[in-house]
């Protein structure tokens, strides 16, 4: 941590009323949004290592069934189910959400809107503490009698409601509590994002001057708030079924297991857009900077994000086509699901269109941003197979689904995180990451990634179900060809995980030995680059005033190819707003 002290500069530069604080108060009890953002980031990264370890165990068991896994031992069916369940739960709730929403949201939003902190700093601290509590409860659940919950991240009752069925009574309750507390943490945190973006914007920053990533995190928070409620209710009901003898989901006493599924997926589907929008925002920041070109279709991107968010409330039962719902309902949901691809496709096309007429530099952040677009295209496209109800009969709960959602989730959680991290590392730590090793890490992640999941499409078509401990007992699935594909996925997993060491080393070494970074090393426009690298407590000596939209690159009236939002205009009439420039070109 001493290295962070060094690279944060003098935290007392701005505020002279601050008393001397000790290490604990400064780094563990801080209300500074930057520290809280870093707390989320480091916690998320630690949880990612845990989630990665679990899937390593799972993949090794599939490739070498019955053999002891190095670093773990023999995998029992119960341990396998727990590893698969925890991999999914951890990656979504304790890696994707803290990294791309809370870490970047907390660090970047006040800087990008030109504020000195979030509007509710103490509430912000509380949100992280709740989040940390939820992570600790989850980790504790591994060590209780019976072990961690193994009923899949979807936790369908009656399996999840009764220890007699799942054999992990304590683990199930702790898992559910951890998820519920994590939801509360993000509800609390989301309020800060939304109100800060609405109210604490710098003078002169209208809503159309707000950078896309801020819009996306705000929209994501609103979507989360509107969708999580029914699942909170469902979690209360399931907790009561588990521990207080109620029968909300118990068919033997008048309950209905499918009710849980509806409550879960009513949240579960909007949730994937909750996690999708922020990294799309990060990519929208990176592409203009490294192609030196104004973002195409600012308003289009925002409208399609809103449209996607609204439509996401009407597609949830595509997760339940064969679950026992009324078959007529399936047709409605199939139609809405296939159609929701349209606003999403439009967003991707807007990013691709930005490249037209640009001058692209392939720096490491740009590589990650471009990889996001390419890989997500695969994820989005393969979703159509599953949204088409007739096809989903065969593909539901097979490895085809796993491949599909990893082609969406991996860009979201991992590529998006690396894009944001490599982009904002100089701002956060005052130093540069090593570019060469950054490229090694990039290719060492992306190439194996495709070798992990493309075989899974084939395995899924052949009928490999999800969450299977091994395929040895099924003659049609235990063929050498299919097993070779599983082996490919496993080897690629190990290779990809191995390359993450390159990133970790690059990260740690660059914290203290990286090339020192100036305030605006990329010559970008948005307000965070107007602050020092890293910014002091209070961010800006004087809060900035905004004169223009965020993506004015290569403006014809300028000598240099960028135009920071807070740079004062030479003459009063030179103020160019987003609306005015769009007007001119209509």
């Amino acid at each position: 941590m001493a290295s962070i002290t060094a690279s944060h500069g003098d935290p007392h530069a701005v505020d002279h009323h601050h008393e001397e604080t000790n290490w604990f108060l400064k780094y563990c009890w801080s209300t500074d949004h930057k520290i809280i953002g870093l707390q989320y980031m480091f916690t998320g990264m630690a949880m990612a290592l845990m989630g990665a370890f679990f899937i390593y165990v799972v993949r090794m068991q599939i490739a070498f069934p019955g053999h002891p896994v190095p670093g773990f031992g023999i995998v029992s069916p119960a341990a396998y189910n727990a590893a698969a369940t925890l991999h999914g739960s951890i990656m979504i709730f304790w890696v994707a959400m803290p990294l791309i929403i809370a870490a970047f949201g907390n660090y970047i939003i006040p800087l990008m809107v030109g504020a000195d902190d979030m509007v509710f700093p103490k509430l912000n601290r509380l949100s992280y503490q709740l989040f940390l509590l939820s992570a600790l409860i989850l980790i504790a659940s591994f060590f209780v009698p019976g072990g961690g919950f193994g009923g899949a991240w979807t936790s369908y009752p009656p399996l999840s409601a009764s220890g007699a069925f799942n054999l992990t009574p304590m683990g199930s309750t702790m898992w559910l509590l951890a998820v519920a507390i994590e939801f509360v943490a993000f509800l609390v945190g989301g309020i800060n994002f939304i109100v800060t973006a609405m109210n604490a914007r710098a003078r002169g920053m209208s809503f159309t001057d707000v950078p896309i990533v801020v819009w996306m995190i705000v929209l994501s928070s609103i979507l989360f708030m509107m969708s999580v409620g029914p699942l909170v209710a469902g979690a209360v009901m399931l907790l009561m079924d588990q521990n207080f003898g109620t029968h909300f989901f118990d068919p033997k006493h008048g309950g209905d297991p499918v009710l849980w599924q509806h409550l879960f997926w009513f949240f579960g589907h909007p949730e994937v857009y909750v996690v999708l929008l922020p990294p799309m925002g990060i990519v929208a920041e990176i592409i203009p900077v490294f192609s030196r070109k104004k973002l195409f279709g600012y308003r289009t991107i925002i409208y399609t994000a809103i449209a996607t968010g609204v439509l996401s409330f009407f597609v949830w039962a595509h997760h339940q086509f064969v679950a026992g719902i009324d078959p007529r309902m399936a047709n409605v949901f199939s139609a809405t699901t296939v159609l929701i691809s349209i606003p999403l496709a439009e967003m991707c096309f807007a990013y691709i269109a930005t490249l037209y007429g640009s001058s692209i530099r392939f720096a490491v952040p740009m590589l990650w941003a471009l990889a996001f677009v390419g890989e997500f295209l695969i994820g989005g496209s393969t979703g159509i197979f599953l949204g088409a109800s007739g096809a989903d009969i065969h593909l539901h709960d097979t490895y085809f689904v796993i491949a599909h959602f990893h082609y969406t989730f991996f860009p979201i959680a991992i590529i998006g995180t690396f894009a944001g991290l490599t982009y904002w590392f100089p701002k956060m730590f005052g130093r540069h990451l090593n570019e060469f090793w950054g490229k090694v890490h990039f290719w060492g992640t992306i190439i194996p990634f495709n070798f992990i999941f493309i075989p899974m499409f084939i395995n899924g078509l052949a009928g490999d179900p999800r969450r299977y401990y091994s395929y040895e007992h099924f003659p049609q699935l235990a063929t050498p060809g299919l097993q070779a594909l599983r082996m490919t996925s496993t080897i690629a997993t190990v290779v990809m995980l191995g390359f993450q060491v390159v990133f970790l080393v690059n990260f740690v070494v660059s914290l203290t030995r990286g090339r020192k970074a100036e305030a605006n090393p990329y010559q970008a426009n948005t307000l965070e680059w107007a602050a020092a690298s890293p910014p002091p407590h209070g961010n800006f000596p004087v809060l900035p005033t905004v004169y223009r939209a965020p993506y004015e690159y290569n403006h014809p009236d300028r000598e240099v190819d960028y135009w920071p939002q807070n740079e004062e205009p030479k003459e009063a009439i030179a103020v160019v707003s987003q609306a005015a420039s769009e007007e001119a070109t209509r």
Partner: protein
Amino acid sequence: MKVQATSRTAAGLPTGKLAVWWVIASEVPIFGGLLASYLMNRVANPGWSEGLEHLNLWIGAFNTLVLISSSLVVMLAHAAAARGDGQKAAARLRLTAAGGALFLCIKAYEWSVKIRAGHVPSAGGLWQYYFSATGLHAAHILVGITILLIVAAGAAKGKELQRVELIGLYWHFVDVVWVALFHLFYIVR
């Protein structure tokens, strides 16, 4: 250290008020989800009306009166705070909290009567919904009482008077939720 961001109003509303509205917005789907599940099950189980007969309409109505009155009192507290009269606002906030406490006592009595009669959460369809809905609501009342007292303590010293309106908004929301519960469980049998 006072953060400048907290007092900015670029969207025209004070940050505290914006925050409370967003909190209320996120709570609506929580109760909505629980009550929608209840409604679907209620429609499918006409036999539950027999159990609902056991709920005492008069106690429910009295509780509703208590909460609505306390909402009125909290509005008066806001009026006092708007005038800058912290002492009066604090007294009225504490009266509101007392109303909430009275509500909880009556609810506790009601619950104990039901439990002694064998109508427990694990007894079956209707009762698990009744106890979880009223329990979730009661938890929100308890949190509300706590915040009322904290804001009252500050208001009595003349500090942070803008928070009186904010806790009032939350209290009104909790009141509205109760009115919905009262209708669903006590009136529309």
